[in-house]
């Protein structure tokens, strides 16, 4: 292994790290948002929507991510065009940047897993907590935000940490639709200088560094929340 190349590759890949992390954060937050909505639809037994969510989740959990990314890549622009056409908007969806398509595809897929995590963590809050809030005259929304969610969050936090890492790694599939992340950048560098091992070792180290950071942060946050209950 060539140390000088290693260092060069490091400098070459580093600038792409913030972008990759930012992409991961966006997808992660979206997946929690969509996951929460799906969990609520299921918990509150909303007719029709509930059946749709169940089918949708089954489809997403059973489809390889790369397949779903390609489906989105080839169909999302036409779908968007159809809707903008209905609204008489003059927008050509074939110019949608591939990063947006990646965000949509990965967020939806991860949200189907998040929905389960979120549902489980809300179910783990004992019914007595809800009863107590109701008996004091809280509105359902107040009970939800002040009492139930903070407790559910403690349960969900470790799962969220690993979900973030799953997202982080899933983004590397974006290479297939020309989104450049840590992995894609290392591939580009490797093919230009032909030092393959060095490039991928650097990429792996970077993923690993981010993982260490995320795990440390969630652990810290978790123990802080635990000390509060």
């Amino acid at each position, binding site marked *: 292994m060539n140390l000088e190349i290693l260092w060069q590759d490091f400098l070459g890949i580093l600038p792409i790290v913030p972008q990759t992390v930012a992409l991961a954060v966006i997808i992660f937050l979206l997946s929690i948002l969509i996951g929460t909505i799906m969990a609520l639809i299921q918990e509150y037994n909303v007719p029709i929507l509930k059946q749709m969510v169940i089918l949708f989740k089954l489809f997403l959990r059973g489809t390889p991510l790369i397949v779903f990314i390609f489906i989105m890549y080839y169909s999302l622009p036409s779908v968007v065009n159809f809707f903008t056409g209905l609204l008489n908007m003059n927008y050509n969806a074939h110019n949608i940047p591939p990063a947006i398509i990646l965000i949509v595809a990965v967020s939806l897929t991860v949200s189907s897993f998040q929905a389960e995590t979120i549902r489980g963590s809300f179910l783990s809050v*004992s019914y*007595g*907590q809800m*009863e*107590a*809030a*109701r*008996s*004091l*005259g*809280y*509105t359902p929304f*107040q009970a939800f935000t*002040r*009492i139930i969610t*903070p*407790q559910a969050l*403690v349960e969900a936090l470790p799962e969220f940490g690993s979900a973030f890492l799953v997202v982080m790694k899933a983004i590397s599939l974006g290479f297939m639709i020309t989104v450049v992340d840590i992995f894609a950048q290392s591939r580009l560098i490797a093919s230009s200088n032909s030092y393959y091992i060095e490039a991928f070792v650097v990429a792996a180290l970077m993923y690993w560094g981010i993982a260490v950071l995320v795990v440390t942060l969630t652990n810290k946050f978790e123990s802080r929340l635990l000390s*509060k*209950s």
Partner: protein
Amino acid sequence: MLNIENLKLSFGEKEVLKGVNLSVDKGDVVTFIGPSGTGKTTILKCINYLVEPHEGRMQMGSISVDFKKINKKETLKLRRNTAMVFQQFNLFKNKTVVENVMDAQIAVQKKSKKEAYNKSMELLDKVGLSDKEKDYPSKLSGGQQQRVSIARALAVEPDIILFDEPTSSLDPELVDEVLKVIESVAKTGVTILLVTHEMDFARKISNKVVFMEKGKVIEEGPPDQIFENSENERTKQFLKKFYSENKEVLEVR
């Protein structure tokens, strides 16, 4: 001040309440006694609509509801005029002792933080727990948790406090501290509805005792009438059985 008419509820096939009537005056301390599973707790939870009866009317102060067509606004009104102390305490796990007492004042009554805090500390002082202000409920004994939950109930200044077997899940040596607090609450003149298996306490504290069995009120009256001069066979049987069993327990000890 509280009038319940023909309260009916079934869980599936099982009729839990078979048309209960009850009337309570302001300042009354009403105790419900009777075998387990006869609907005593259920009545309490119907009053603040934690359990939803299928039929019946209720008048509470100026609020009047028909349970067949109760709406969300009425439900909130009922809950905001009552408070409940639960068998399992149900303190908010994510909040400290003082926050537990403060939270409803801030969220529901829209008081300022400072105002809520001062009132909460005053109440915690009353139940003897002002030094636990910053602890989380999980750090407290059952008796302490129940005293906090009584302070939490008092904090919203309810017209009626519903005590649902407040000592049933406590270790025997912790029962007394909670009963003492309940007694002091009763002396403030607030209306109390209490479900308990502590017969001696019921007799001492209440001015009205309701004996229930199988979803029906069998007999009601002042404690002396129920405990000493009951004319009703079922009441007599229940009390006799209760006291003889307790005597056995005492003898074994």
